[in-house]
């Protein structure tokens, strides 16, 4: 990949729809990942996150809209579900060379990076869910692809390991400059380093930085008040405290009912049935 080109997006989806068995799995989805950008897809189960990612990397065909990938794009993929038939003997080391040969040293470095250095010669069937997930992540990143697509990469990993893996994902991005498309249904751990969050529910509900999405009423309606709060909590736990009654005291002393970063100076009731968004942070699009 040439460094001095203006950064063309690695992948871009415009108004993409996927229809299977007479049902639209996703429709009108816009999605773009630039080199060095981390894009996180969030949404409830069945909201089409995996479908959108599969269309982006060519595993599924779009029935409408445009899908563009940069020429000769190299992809590292961690699928959401993977079960390896037990009749297939496979060591972790062999798994690492699944899509291309790698030296012993490179494999050891990659396994060390995800914290399973000692398991190189273990059979993949004997790994715990978390260990297997780490091995898959190591395998996807070992060839330093231009784009990493990680579908629920930390499933089965314990809380401390989860934080470590997210840190690793950030390190990979910084060191290799790859773009990352991350899928999560776990709203609590949408990463602080995410550049763009796309909130999906068949269509794109809202798009923006994590703060912008958290502040968006469409997001709140989709996930409910508490989810909206927890996202913001994750981002801003240094500058506000949660009062016993659920309200939030901000650094400047004001108290609000929830902790959107841009609503620290006004107060409002939560009416989930409201039609008009009271506020929208920045240039949010409301596609819902």
């Amino acid at each position, binding site marked *: 990949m040439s460094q001095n080109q203006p950064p063309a997006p690695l992948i871009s989806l415009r108004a993409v729809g996927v229809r299977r068995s007479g049902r639209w799995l996703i429709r009108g989805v816009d999605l773009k990942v630039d080199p060095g950008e981390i894009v996180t897809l969030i949404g409830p189960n069945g909201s089409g996150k995996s479908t959108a990612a599969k269309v982006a990397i060519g595993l599924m065909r779009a029935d409408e809209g445009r899908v563009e990938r940069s020429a000769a794009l190299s992809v590292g*993929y961690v699928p959401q579900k993977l079960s390896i*038939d037990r009749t297939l003997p496979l060591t972790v080391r*062999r798994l690492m060379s*699944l*899509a*291309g040969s790698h030296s012993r040293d490179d494999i050891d470095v990659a396994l060390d990076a995800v914290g399973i250095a000692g398991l190189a010669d273990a059979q993949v069937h004997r790994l715990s869910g978390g260990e297997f997930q780490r091995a898959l992540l190591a395998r996807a990143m070992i060839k330093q692809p231009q784009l990493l*697509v990680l579908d629920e990469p930390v499933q089965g990993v314990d809380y401390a390991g989860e934080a470590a893996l997210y840190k690793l994902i950030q390190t990979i991005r910084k060191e290799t400059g790859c773009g990352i498309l991350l899928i999560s249904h776990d709203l609590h751990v949408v990463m602080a380093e995410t550049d763009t969050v796309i909130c999906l529910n068949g269509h794109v509900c809202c798009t923006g930085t994590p703060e912008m999405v958290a502040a968006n009423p469409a997001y709140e309606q989709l996930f409910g008040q508490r989810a909206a709060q927890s996202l913001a909590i994750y981002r801003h736990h240094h500058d506000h405290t949660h009062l016993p009654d659920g309200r939030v005291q901000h650094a400047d002393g004001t108290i609000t009912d929830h902790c959107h970063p841009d609503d620290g100076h006004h107060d409002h009731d939560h009416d989930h049935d409201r039609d008009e968004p009271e506020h929208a942070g920045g240039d949010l699009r409301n596609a819902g």
Partner: protein
Amino acid sequence: MITIVMSRNMPAGTFEMLDDFFVRALFAGSALAIVAGPLGCFVVWRRMAYFGDTMAHSGLLGVALAFLFEVPLIIGVFAVAVGVSMALLALQRKDALPSDSLLGILSHSALALGLVLVTYMTWLRIDLLSFLFGDILAVSKADIAVIVLGGATVLAVLAAIWRPLIAGTVSSEIAQAEGLSPERAKVIFMILMACVIAMAMKLVGVILITALLIIPAASARQFSSTPEQMAGISVLAGILSVATGLFTSLQFDTPSGPSIVVASLALYLLSLAAMGFAGSMRGEPSEDRS
């Protein structure tokens, strides 16, 4: 040892000829086992046992059509096996029926159709049993040439598609996302299967081909930690089965094809026992968690 065994069963004057056909059988069987080993591993890993059966059963239809259109048998069998496998691929994509039902329909109707056609062509005097169960002791030098050349080609092509085929076996999504064309590898693999079935039919017959693919691979599973190891060990297991089966066939005057399959079964049972023994030596249950 061969002479000792033979002298019990055979009249003394035919030694040299017997020796010859026996060596030919051994050679042809071993060549087939070398190809069947790695292919059989994929059949096991990809859960294609019934699929292999279906392709093999269609072999008899291939024989009938070959007689009808006066082409070499092996071509007829190969063509029909490829046709059946491509039909299956197409039907699977349509999601018309579950795969096993589709296979059941195709497998047995191809076999029945073959039987009907073969018996209908009354002008043909063919030994139906030899197609169903093979006649490895009747292989000619020309047969051996076909098996060796065909087998070498199959192995070369398999080596060329090895990486995408393994990657696609682990996860076709990963393989495809990372640019390995697993679907193409799968189609090529089907064609290789058809090749092996066409070559194997004369040796072990349409009913038993799948056994020769699966059982050595299953025996090798216990002793392997990578796919490549399993492919290699299943080749050894296959050769051992062919040799043991042929010797017992000669000694006890049993049909050769079924004897080879029985030998490979015995080897598989031995491998299970060996694994259980090794496990108990390490203080583990022989079956790990599943």
